[in-house]
Structure formats: C-alpha cells, structure tokens
C-alpha cells in the first residue's frame, strides 16, 4: 500500500518536472543544490525570484518554437 503511494508520488513529481521543463522552467531544487555545491558564497534565490528570472531568460532572443 505504502509502496503504491510512493510510486504514485514519484510518478506525479516526474510529471510536474516534465511539465515545468516543457515550459522552460528548470528544476529549482537542482539549482539550489548546484549553488550550494559550487557557489556557497552566493545567496540562494527564493522560488519566486528563480521563476521570474527564468521566465525572462526564456523569451530573450533565440530559443523559440516550431511553426
């Protein structure tokens, strides 16, 4: 029972990550881990700051989509 709930949760988390990646928002936790590991001197952004920054970056210049 517990295992099934866990599976469902993993599946859901994966779906959410795919959904976010589709619209160009990378994984926030992953970025925090990266900052902690490689740039411990920098302040960690809040999720809202991170989201806004990525939203701006996505539509700057190239990128784009197909016809």
């Amino acid at each position, binding site marked *: 029972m517990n295992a099934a709930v866990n599976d469902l949760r993993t599946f859901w988390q994966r779906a959410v990550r795919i*959904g976010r*990646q589709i*619209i160009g*928002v990378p994984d926030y936790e992953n*970025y925090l881990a990266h900052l902690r590991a490689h740039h411990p001197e920098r302040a960690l952004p809040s999720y809202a700051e991170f989201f806004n920054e990525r939203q701006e970056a996505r539509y*700057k*210049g*190239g990128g784009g989509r*197909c*016809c």
Partner: protein
Amino acid sequence: MDSVAAKIGWLVVAAIGAICLGVIALHRGESINAIWLVAAALSVFTIGYRFYGRMIATQVLKLDPTRATPAQLRNDGLDYVPTDKWIVFGHHFAAIAGAGPLVGPVLAAQMGYLPGTLWILFGVVFAGAVQDFMILGLSLRRDGRSLGHMLRAELGNVAGVICMIGVLVLMMIVLAVLALVVVKALAISPWGTFTVACTIPIAILMGVYLRYLRPGRVLEVSIIGLVLLLLSIWGGGVIAADPLWAPYFTFSASQLAWLVIGYGFFASVLPVWLLLAPRDYLSTFLKIGTIALLAIAILFSAPYLQMPAITQFVDGSGPVFAGNLFPFLFITIACGAVSGWHSIIASGTTPKLLANEREALLVGYGGMLVEAFVAIMALIAATALHPGIYFAMNSPAAAIGADVQSAAAAISQWGFVVTPQDLLDTARNIGETTILSRAGGAPTLAVGMAQLLHNIMPGEGMMAFWYHYAILFEALFILTTVDAGTRVGRFMIQELVGLAVPALQKTESWTGNLIATAFCVAIWGYFLYQGAVDPLGGINTLWPLFGIANQMLAAIALILSCVVVVKLKRERYLWVPAIPACWLVICTLTAGWQKLFDASPKLGFPAAAKKFADAIAENKITAPAKSIAEMQRIVFNNYLDAALTGLFMLLVIAAVFFGVRTMLAARRLSRPSANEEPYIALGASA
C-alpha cells in the same frame, strides 16, 4: 540474449507494417478504416527507430556513452543541466510540435490519403528524423552551439550569413502564414472571435496571478486558465446567438488581419510575464492534452476514410493548392515529414540538457517520429470527413462560388456528390453560418476533430462546442507563436541592422525596440494582409512559399550534416544525410522553378502578375479584383512573391556550392578535420 525471440518479435512488427501498408495501398473503390493507417505508422516508426535510427547513432554519429555532454561539462543549473531523458523528450517535443504538422497534411488531403501518408511515413524515417537527430548529435559535440554557429565553423562565414538570412525570411513567412490560418478560421465567426479574444484577458489574469498572488505556481494557474477558457467557449456560443452582440464580434478577413497585426505589435512589446508567458504555458499544456485527446478519439471511434486513396487532383488541378504531386506534395507537407525549423530547436536548448549522448536517439529521432504521428492523425481527421465537405471548406470562392448551391454543384461535378443541404447542416451543427472557403487547415481539422470527439462523446450541441474548442486550441498556440516569433524576429533585425547602425543594437533601449518591432510586424503583416485579400484565398500563395522556405532550411541543415560526415572521414555513410539533402534540393528548386516560370497563372507568380497587368493595359477589371488599384496591388504582390522564391532558390544553390566545396577540400586532407570539441570522459570533469 539478443535472441531468436527478439528476432521473431521484429519480424512480426515488420509483417504487421507490410500488411497494413498493403491494405492502405491496394484497397481501391471502397473506404478503409483509419486504424490501418495508425498501425502502419506505428510499425514503420518502430522499425525505423530500432534499425535506421540506431544505425545512425552507432555508425554515422558514433555516439559515445562514455563521453561527457555539454550539460555535464558546463553544468550551471540553469541553461546547461543534465536532465532525465524523458523530461528532455517532453521539452523537445513541445518545442518542435506546432501548427505545421496539423495544417500541411490537411491541405495535402486534396490528393487523397495515400500520397500524404506515404510521404509522411518514409519522409520522416529517411529525412525529417535524420535531420533532427544529426543536428542534435553535431551540436552535442560542439558545446550545444546553434545551427548558424556550426555552419560558420564548418562551411565558413558566408554560409553562416546565408543561414541567418534564410532563417529570418523563413520566420517572417511562418508568422504571416500562421496568422493567416487564424484569420481564415475566425472570419465571419463571432463565436470563434469572441472565444479567442477572451484568451487575452485570461492570460493577463494568469500573468498577474503568477507574478504577484502565487509566484511560480504554474500548475494551479493553468487549471484556472483552462476552466476560464472552457467558459469562454460556452460564452462564445451565447454571444453568437445574440442578435445584439454578435455583430460586434463579426469581422471580415481583412479586418481580422489588421487586428492580428495590432495584436502582434502590442503583445510583443509588453513584458513577457504579463501576456506571452502565461499564454504560452496554457497553450503548451492544451496542445499536448489535445494531441492525446485526438489520438484517443481516433482509436475509439475508428473512423472510415471517406476521401479516396488518390484523387484526380494529383495532376496539379486541385482547388486547395496548385501544382503537381511532384514536387508540391513534398513542399506542402513540410512539418510532420521534414522541417528545417527543427534544426534550430535541435541546436538550441535540447543539446544543453542531455545527460548522455546515447539519449540523443530517443530525443532527436524519436521526438520527430512522434511529430510525424501527429501529422498522420491530422491527415486522418481531414480524410475521415466527407470529401464534399472537405472541398467546400478548402476551395476558394473563385472555384466554387459564394453560395451553397454553386458550391454543391461545382464539387459534385468533381465527383464528390454533396447537396446544398449537407453544407448548410454541417455549418449549423458546428454553430457557424457558413463553412465555404475556409482554407488554412484549422477549420477543416476542427470539423474533423469535432466529428471524432462527437463520436466518442455524443450529446446535443456538443459538435459546436468541440469545433470551437479545436479552433481555440489552434488559435491559442498560433497567436503565442506570433508573439514570441515577433520578439525573436525583432532581436534578429536588431542584430543585422546593428552591424550598420550600432545604436539600434541595444535590445534594452525602447527606441531600438519599438523601431525594430514595428519593422518586424510590418514585414509579416504585409504578407498577412496580402494573403487576407488574395483572390485565391491567400493560403494558396503563402503556404507553398512557406514550404519552400522550410525545406530550404532543412536542405541547409542536411548539407551541414553531409559536410561533417565527410570531414570525419566517414564517407561510407555519406548517403544517410545526402539522400534527403539531394531530395530536398531537387524539390525546392523544382517547385521554385515552376513558381517562377510556369505559364499558368494559377501556378506561376509572374504568369499571374502578367494576367492582371494585361487586363490593366486593356482597362478591364478581372474578377475577383474590384478596381484597377486592387489589380495593381495583385501584380506587385505576385512579383514580390516571385522575388522571394528566387531568393530562396539562390540560398539553396549557395548552400550546395559551399557544401560541395568544403567536402572536396576535406577529402584532400588525410586526417579528420571537423571542429569537434575534444573528448572528455564522463565523470572526469566533476
């Protein structure tokens, strides 16, 4: 372990594919079930993926699972992030799948279901997926660099500039033709216009919510947006039935063209978080959801294809677009079989996300196969319709007249018997006043989808709901593309013009921004307006231009792949990118040649210009123009389209020249000469 069982399994898949293709190709005179097409597509794609795709991975690109990818080497947590392969797949597919695979197959259905099906199935396996996959593979070995960068590095600066011009012109044509699809779908349709107009306040509401109320909560805001969208479809029905309000949302094609042009300008200078981003989220999720819904509807309703396998219009006399099967079928179905635009995506974000080279096969080759499947579904939706309805919707008024009597008579004469009452009933069922001459693919697909969905979810009045749902779904993501594309076009114009006037290059400056945006909107807006008032319905003129431009870019990307294969001293496999490259060069040049020099005014641009110019000289007004001024504009536009076609042909020829020159030079060298980044083992960098 790659045992007898596996071999038998693949034999079974091959046999299923062969049987399905046989049924599709040999059944004549009676309609076949769409499931045969689905099964044939699935088996061809599986075999193509397992054998041809894997051969390219191991022999041509020599992908190396031990080699570190750009995402591993430059991991910055933002742009370069090693990501789960299914997540990259989702990202890549969402970026490549647009309106193209939905529109092209619908237009090509005028030749019957067989030519389009065969071109999609074999085109994708040997051309489209090869291009996407190889460009992705090349970019993976070059720090995730873009197509333009790679061309400059491998073929020289001039080739890079050719690519840049080609991409810019292609972009303008894409924006114009997609905007025209929306204009055609919404003309004289208060229901559709109201519903699509509602997406603007809904998106702004979502944007404010995401920015200030619940920052970054994309999922919940998308659900709110979806509910509001469904409400706006219902609201559109109420408005359309109301004699007081309906006129306020009823516009002609030329009025809508101006509205879309104005929208494109304002939307692309607003901050992205306010309108563009939230709409993009909504349209992306809606797109994926609707594609899944369409697949379910086809599987469960298992419709019969009412369109013949091959119609008499393969001879080039068709009302939807002019030109023979060769080369125009291969121009009309671009996205879905092979699309040059994908080479920009495959050398954009995707190579910066892959955690291992091995996964490029799934994402690059597999992603394109799924897009081809979308194209097959669009073809099914269009050919499952009664051909009489199909031709009534897609033929210009010049061919079928402006009322149901003349349309039914003309179409019945072509051999697709339909009564005026059928045409009226279809219009009433979908909640519209007319279905005549709604070329552009979107309305046809919407009627097809509405019938399929109605089959599995019947209900009084539901046809009209599903029709407008489908129109909304297409309009939503096309308008998002118009907005995003205008921004990208603006940056490209600023970059190009900035070479001469450095002050305009500052992308943060409002002056530079507004001037470049206005310039960009003016270019695509001009073509859009021209299409909206075009005597043959616009799509007839613009879609082949778009197809030629898109295939031109694909040819350039495949020529780059050929050059790299030669530079790597893997000439044994040169045929893999060379066959599709040659095919696309032949198709684009032949189509361009016919567009320039064919004597029929239906096909050749200069011939059409001459027809109207001669009439002007005799002071005679030729229908459908209503004044001499209008006729002069038609003459000018046709010469402009001819010039553009000539430009595309020159770009293709130049790319071939630089490609061949580079390959010959590389052959003379005794060692590999491609500009790959050096090998770094996976894990060595961290």
